[in-house]
């Protein structure tokens, strides 16, 4: 009998083994689910550092730090965040693969979600569009991680459209500001141009080619490197022959200038204009352009500072009812510089307000230190261009 009972022991042991195995699996499942139900696993977004974009060697890099809290019983392994960029047809343009990270259990781990868009992965056309015009790109985000001793893998995919750029805008040849220049026997025409670049591209070197062509077939150009910043204002100094220079100054050149900006080797954009130096016809369409600094005021809008500067002008009756461009620049001796473009309605006795946003530092300078600032307004209308500038150091009253 005893022997017979002993013979049944393997059966009992197997049954107990199966039960133990099932209990173990059940425990694993329960211990996996429990932290999810009780909020033991969570994400905290870092409020201070929200996804600032940087640019380096053709790669746009954005990083958003998050804190993953894992109070569960198992490590979270191979947490990966990847992005896939696609065009409207769903063709993959670029892929940004994140580095796999491990989140140990019982700890809070800071994880940097990284997005890397290599612009050189994009076609030239797409890249150019992205830089100069801005574009909508479809992108898919995939977040994957392993849990429960790597036995469970969770992947979440989310797709969306994303507006990008433009990163470089407002390239403008200021042909109305072009000036002939004589240096000994050499003759030049100096053509200012301006552009804006996203802060992300600060310091990136771009190439600018400015070409001059007149109706007699004269062609001249100059190539120069510019460092991109939020506001670029440069001049191109194009060498001219004596004859071309003469035609330009006596108003018979009928010349055009074209400024072409090259970035990332093969992406370019250009702007061109008709030069009208010398000659010309009739009187000035706009007269007596004057800054009215005495009427300017400074406003504190709860942490944002707005400076309002009026300027006045008079318009020739034949041009009244039209619009002119006004470019207002503001700078102080501490290196703060800002500008604003606006359209101005031309009337007989015109009056317009320029609204300029100041940084905290620039505001403190003018409000507490009686800083002397330099303001210049340039108006452009058809072939005409004129400006008014002033240094100003009267204290501003601040209205809330």
């Amino acid at each position, binding site marked *: 009998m005893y022997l017979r009972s002993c*013979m049944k022991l*393997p059966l009992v042991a197997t049954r107990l083994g199966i039960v133990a195995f099932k209990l173990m699996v059940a425990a694993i499942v329960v211990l996996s689910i429990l932290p999810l139900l009780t909020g033991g696993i969570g994400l905290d977004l870092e409020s201070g550092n929200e996804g600032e974009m940087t640019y380096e060697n053709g790669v746009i890099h954005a990083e958003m730090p998050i804190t993953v809290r894992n109070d569960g019983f198992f490590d979270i392994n191979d947490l990966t965040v990847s992005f896939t960029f696609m065009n409207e047809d769903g063709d993959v343009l670029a892929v940004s693969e994140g580095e796999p990270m491990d989140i140990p259990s019982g700890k809070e781990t800071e994880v940097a979600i990284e997005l890397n868009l290599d612009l050189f992965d994009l076609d030239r056309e797409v890249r150019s569009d992205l830089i100069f015009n801005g574009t909508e790109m479809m992108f898919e985000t995939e977040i994957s991680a392993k849990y429960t001793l790597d036995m469970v893998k969770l992947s979440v995919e989310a797709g969306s459209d994303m507006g990008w750029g433009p990163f470089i805008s407002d390239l403008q040849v200021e042909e109305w500001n072009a000036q002939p220049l004589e240096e000994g026997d050499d003759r030049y025409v100096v053509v200012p141009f301006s552009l804006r670049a996203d802060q992300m591209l600060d310091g990136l070197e771009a190439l600018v080619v400015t070409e001059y062509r007149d109706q007699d077939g004269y062609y001249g150009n100059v190539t120069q490197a510019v460092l991109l910043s939020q506001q670029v204002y440069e001049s191109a100094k194009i060498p001219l022959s004596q004859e071309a220079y003469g035609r330009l100054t006596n108003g018979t050149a009928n010349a055009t200038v074209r400024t072409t900006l090259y970035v990332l080797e093969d992406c370019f954009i250009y702007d061109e204009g008709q030069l009208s130096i010398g000659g010309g016809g009739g009187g000035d369409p706009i007269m007596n352009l004057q800054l009215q600094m005495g009427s300017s005021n400074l406003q504190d809008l709860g942490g944002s500072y707005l400076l309002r500067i009026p300027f006045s002008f008079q318009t020739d009756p034949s041009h009244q009812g039209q619009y002119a461009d006004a470019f207002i620049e503001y700078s102080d001796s501490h290196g703060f510089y800002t500008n604003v473009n606006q359209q101005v309605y031309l009337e007989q006795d015109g009056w317009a307000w320029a609204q300029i946003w100041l940084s905290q530092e620039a505001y403190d300078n003018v409000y507490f230190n009686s800083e002397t600032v330099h303001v210049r307004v340039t108006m452009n209308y058809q072939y005409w261009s004129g400006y008014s500038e002033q240094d100003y150091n009267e204290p501003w009253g601040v209205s809330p």
Partner: protein
Amino acid sequence: MNIGEFDKRHFSLVKGGMTAVAHALKYLAIPYILFVLGLMVLAGQDGPQRVGDLIGELQTVVLIFGIVLTVLGFFKGAYPKGSYSRFMFGITASVLVIVYVFSLLLNGRTQEVISREAFELDLNAIFVLYFFPALLAVLMPFGEFADHRRPWLEKEGMLEARPVEEAGDHHFYHDFRLRYGSLYNGLKLGRSTLIGFVVIPLIIIIVLKAGFSSLNVEEVDSMMSNLDDISAYMVMLGLPMAALAFFKGFYPKGSFSRFMPAVVMVLITLYWIWVLGLEGRFVFDSIEEISLVLDYSKLLMLIMVGTALWIVYYVLELLLYRPEWRAAGFPKDLREERKARKEAQRKAKEERKAAKERAKEEKRQAKEKAQEEKKAAKEKKE
């Protein structure tokens, strides 16, 4: 039918009382207490009156059927297995249980109240699902009667005992002889498999679908479609499993006829787990532009490995029970007979032990006698 089998000399008050208590708990006390608790919760939360009324009516049904089933249970338990008396009371109780459950539907009013207070739940479909295992439950008293009739008659001396079958030229395929099987055990296991693998999953699916439908959200459409697919699989796999479970329960431990369906059942169960576990991959992509994929195939594999261990168990069971079954003359796997065999084995063991001790005692006495004789001889010599 032999009316004499209703005689009180076959009647056991204790056994009847035990079955009556079991029936009272199952059909009267537990449902009644649940309804009382339901009423208390309802009163605490100031619930709707019609739900209170419904529970009140259900309590009445429970009281009536519960008492009748308790009485029937008493008489069923009091008579011995294999007797017409037990069979009659047993089958009456089984049929009455179906009527009892049907009465709880209150001609559709239960469903109507649930629909108004929660969601559209098809109680008729659930009743139909319940009906199939209930039908097997009706057949179980018949199985029990068929299994125990001869042993009981033999025990009562109304039938001559059948000689024990010799193991002589018994081959493994002889294990499939129907006379080795227990109809009751087969029906019992088939029924529980049908409930576990078909009825309960389908009821859960019906409830889930009713819940999802009440949400009126398009996003759950694909999940509903998934549930339909799973339902089909549950039926396709569950019915063969219930059939195999019948044979597994029908044949005794140690027989190939039990081992083979048991192993096939384990294999189907593995596939059942794989299907019910959505092949280890849950995809939720109903929300526009967001898809969630949960790959738990490794965990599912682990569960399947745990289940596959049953194959080892059944191999061991075959190897370990087979000699015992052969030695006992290939009997049916009846609890009473098993108990009787064990009792006989215990007695045999005690007899062997007593004989051994007797022999020991005789040996000791002989030794003492020899020593005394030796001593006496020595004294005589001196």
